[in-house]
């Protein structure tokens, strides 16, 4: 990182706690608009609860549509948050400082959005608790269940994995947040807010023991959360891959393919978020073009690996020379509307963004990074859609079983709900807790050195 400004502790405290202490002028109007979108979505859901799943576009044989696509999409977005945070902590990368918490919070709300899609998707959401292995005594003596969850089903692995990931993320975020809650506790005036922050800060005072734990615990937690992150999307991919009856699904590469796709879409989501924060909260002293450049280079590598995985998936799908599989791939590539979606997916998911990111001027420009990363996520949403729906359309010899799928307004509304929910969640979180860790930025100031070699100044950092 060659661009740098040495800031005082007061300035850092002031800048990074300002969104917490007082709302920005745009805050309520933005949250209100997002709240309206969420309300529309919820109204659609209430209508769906009342009328049944027939109000959605799902029908035989396409039983999984927008909700499952959205579920996989948000699981994907959630991945990069913790991955970026965990890997950057483990490698002690200096450029992680302004990014980690925003990425972790994005993970948190993405996971909740993902789980909400399952609730939208199931026919009887009031029975969703049956997935837990709780004996009847804990759930109101509901003996109607009469059976334990089937451990052999991927639909039982899913909630275990996603629940583990969600709980781990919450604990991870909270543990790393404690010093900043203490800062806000000391910054706010006496009142109910101060009491709440004092309780949440648990009496943190900044002793060497407490800081040492703050240094060690995130690294330990990162090392534990990374295997969870790898397993969650692998398990979600196995919802599809273990099925032998649906063309296009039964492929061993699904686990790494989904994970690398998740990293691709998730890291892009983090960049979108960073650019948003930069403009909304005027954080140009903390989020620099160097950060976008570093993430941009990571994205080029990740996108290329993802494209290789896509290539492998296609080659091995065609290798057995099975007619239904070939028919499916033919349909995806040559038959509208699938062919249009396929072209859009390739262009937006890989060719346009990666082509742009090869140029340093693009990587260092927050505006360009914002738009290219949005394109990536459009492409990745379509990718999941193109995996799920065409295969289920069942282009097999039994043509009476052919079906199609068009998302209904209710589904579109609920997909929009999830996007509004995540954005709103991050903004509300930023209103309550600092989204860029002040103590981390201050630590960066203290660790910073400059090595002067002739006329060149090289930034250096303390390595503990």
């Amino acid at each position, binding site marked *: 990182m060659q661009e740098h400004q*040495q800031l005082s502790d007061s300035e850092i405290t002031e800048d990074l706690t300002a969104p917490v202490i007082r709302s920005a002028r745009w805050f309520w109007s933005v949250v209100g608009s997002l709240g309206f979108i969420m309300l529309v979505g919820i109204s659609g859901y209430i209508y769906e609860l009342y009328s049944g799943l027939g109000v959605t576009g799902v029908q035989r044989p396409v039983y999984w549509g927008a909700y499952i696509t959205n579920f996989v999409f948000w699981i994907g977005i959630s991945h990069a948050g913790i991955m970026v945070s965990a890997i950057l902590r483990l490698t002690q990368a200096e450029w992680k400082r302004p990014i980690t918490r925003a990425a972790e919070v994005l993970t948190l709300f993405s996971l909740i959005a993902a789980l909400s899609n399952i609730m939208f998707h199931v026919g009887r959401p009031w029975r969703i608790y049956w997935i837990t292995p709780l004996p009847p005594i804990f759930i109101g003596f509901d003996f109607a269940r009469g059976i334990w969850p089937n451990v052999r089903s991927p639909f039982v692995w899913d909630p275990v994995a996603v629940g583990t990931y969600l709980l781990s993320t919450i604990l991870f975020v909270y543990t790393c947040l404690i010093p900043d809650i203490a800062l806000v506790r000391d910054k706010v005036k006496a009142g109910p807010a101060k009491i709440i922050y004092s309780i949440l800060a648990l009496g943190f005072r900044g002793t060497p023991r407490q800081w040492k734990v703050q240094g060690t615990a995130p690294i330990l937690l990162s090392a534990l959360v990374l295997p969870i992150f790898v397993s969650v999307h692998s398990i979600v991919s196995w919802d599809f891959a273990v099925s032998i009856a649906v063309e296009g699904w039964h492929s061993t590469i699904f686990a790494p393919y989904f994970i690398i796709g998740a990293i691709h879409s998730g890291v892009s989501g983090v960049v979108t978020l960073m650019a948003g924060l930069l403009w909304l909260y005027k954080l140009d002293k903390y989020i620099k073009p160097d950060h976008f450049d570093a993430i941009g280079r990571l994205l080029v590598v990740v996108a290329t690996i993802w494209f290789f995985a896509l290539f492998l998936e296609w080659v091995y799908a065609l290798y057995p020379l099975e007619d239904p599989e070939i028919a499916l791939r033919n349909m995806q590539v040559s038959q509208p509307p699938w062919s249009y979606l396929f072209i859009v997916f390739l262009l937006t998911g890989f060719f346009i963004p990666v082509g742009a990111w090869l140029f340093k001027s693009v990587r260092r420009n927050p505006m360009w990074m914002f738009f290219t990363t949005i394109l990536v996520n459009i492409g990745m949403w379509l990718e999941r859609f193109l995996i799920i729906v065409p295969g289920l359309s069942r282009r097999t010899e039994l043509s009476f079983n052919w079906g199609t799928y068009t998302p209904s307004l209710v589904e579109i509304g609920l997909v929009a709900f999830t996007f509004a929910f995540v954005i709103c969640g991050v903004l509300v979180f930023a209103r309550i807790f600092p989204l860029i860790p002040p103590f981390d930025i201050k630590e960066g100031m203290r660790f910073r050195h400059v090595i002067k070699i002739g006329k060149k100044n090289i930034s250096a950092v303390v390595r503990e």
Partner: protein
Amino acid sequence: MKKIKNNLIFTERVIERSLGKVPVNKELINIHNRKRGNTFNLFLYITAFLSVIGVVGIILRIMNGFDDMSAWSYYVTACMFIFTTFMGAPMFSMATKVARGNWRRPISRMSEIFCISGIAGLIFFIPILWVLPSLEDGRKTLWFFDPGKVPAYSPHIWTTLALIGFVLTALTLLWLNARPDFAILRDKSKGKSKIYSFLAHGWVGSTHQWGALRDRVSVLGIFYFMLLLTVLYFFASDFLMALIPGWVDSLYPVTLSHNAIQGGVAILTIAVFIMWKWGGYQNFIGLDQLWGLGKLLFGISLLWFWFFISSLMVLWYGKKPNERDVLQLLMFGKYLPIFIFTFFFVCIVPFFSLTLDSIRKSYYGPPIIAISVLIGNFLDRFRHYGSAYSLDRTIDDATHRFASLPDIVIPNMVDLMVIFGAVSMPLFFILIISKYVPVISLWENREYLLYGSHEKYYKTEVLVEGKPY
């Protein structure tokens, strides 16, 4: 901290540094230039002898003909072992250069020296081109829809071209990275200055040359990675999967690439330990290097399990007959003992032992675990290639399943000659090249003096490291 306008500001510390009068490390040059001892020469002669044995083994194997594929099981295993251990080691240098970690500096040259093993790999690979059966004999093709219209050169020519490109890229990378060191030795050594002058190829250390070196190494490093993936992709698909009818595993090329990186890190760990223990480099190789390699080995072993379970879950769950046959062939049938030992050596032992701080952060722990990984790696190659090349590809018309599953092939004398040759020939080339290429990079070691040092920080001392680019 300083108080400026009532605000406390922490001023950044400036360290002035110059290498103007700092010479290249004499100790490193002396260790490189010293006359090799009896132990080194003994190993040189042993590896030379075993390489010759290996070549004799290749000739004998060729003389036995190409019709009986099962006779070639160990041969192909040994060849693939070279590519999934020796040729995976240079990836360490490429990857850590991108990550800009400074702990790699004492050992990156050791990883680059493994590039020379490509020559041995190429030698062993050539006869395998004739071993591949024709498409009429049950071999599948990944690349063509109509097996009847497959050109005769599929996949022989493009695989050979990829392999030659791969080996040339590896050798170029080794030379490029070592060029500044050749220049140093040209100017500092007596006796071999003509050889170093030739190898240095006019290196004077101009700004342009250094800039070009950085750019070329990063581009070639990317090419090396891409070609490693490509070559292993061909080895995984055309030279393995296509020989097992019904085995469709889109993950396996990636798995094999991962195994190559795991094997590479393992063999590098052993090399680093040898250099530390017996090479005279105790002042340059420290616990940091072995600890770093131990951490890598731990993470990579965890990934082995992930790749394994990703394939297993999909192939096992649906209970398709052809997939059950493949699992019987590779894991649960007659090759079960090989699979169990593979799993034990390559996953269980590294994972459970490297979890412990006392083993991971030690001089002896990572190398011992690395030996386990290499044993497991060899068994894994044998589990796949041995079973594939000894499989009778006849499909039972009634059940559409394999007519029979092969027994574990017992190695004969020729097989043992080939195996010893395959392990010894790369080592022989490495020992020879280490007489000319410094095992620890002189210029990278010197470069670190600019960017890393211990500095006083109030009442303590800290390590300060800069990252110039």
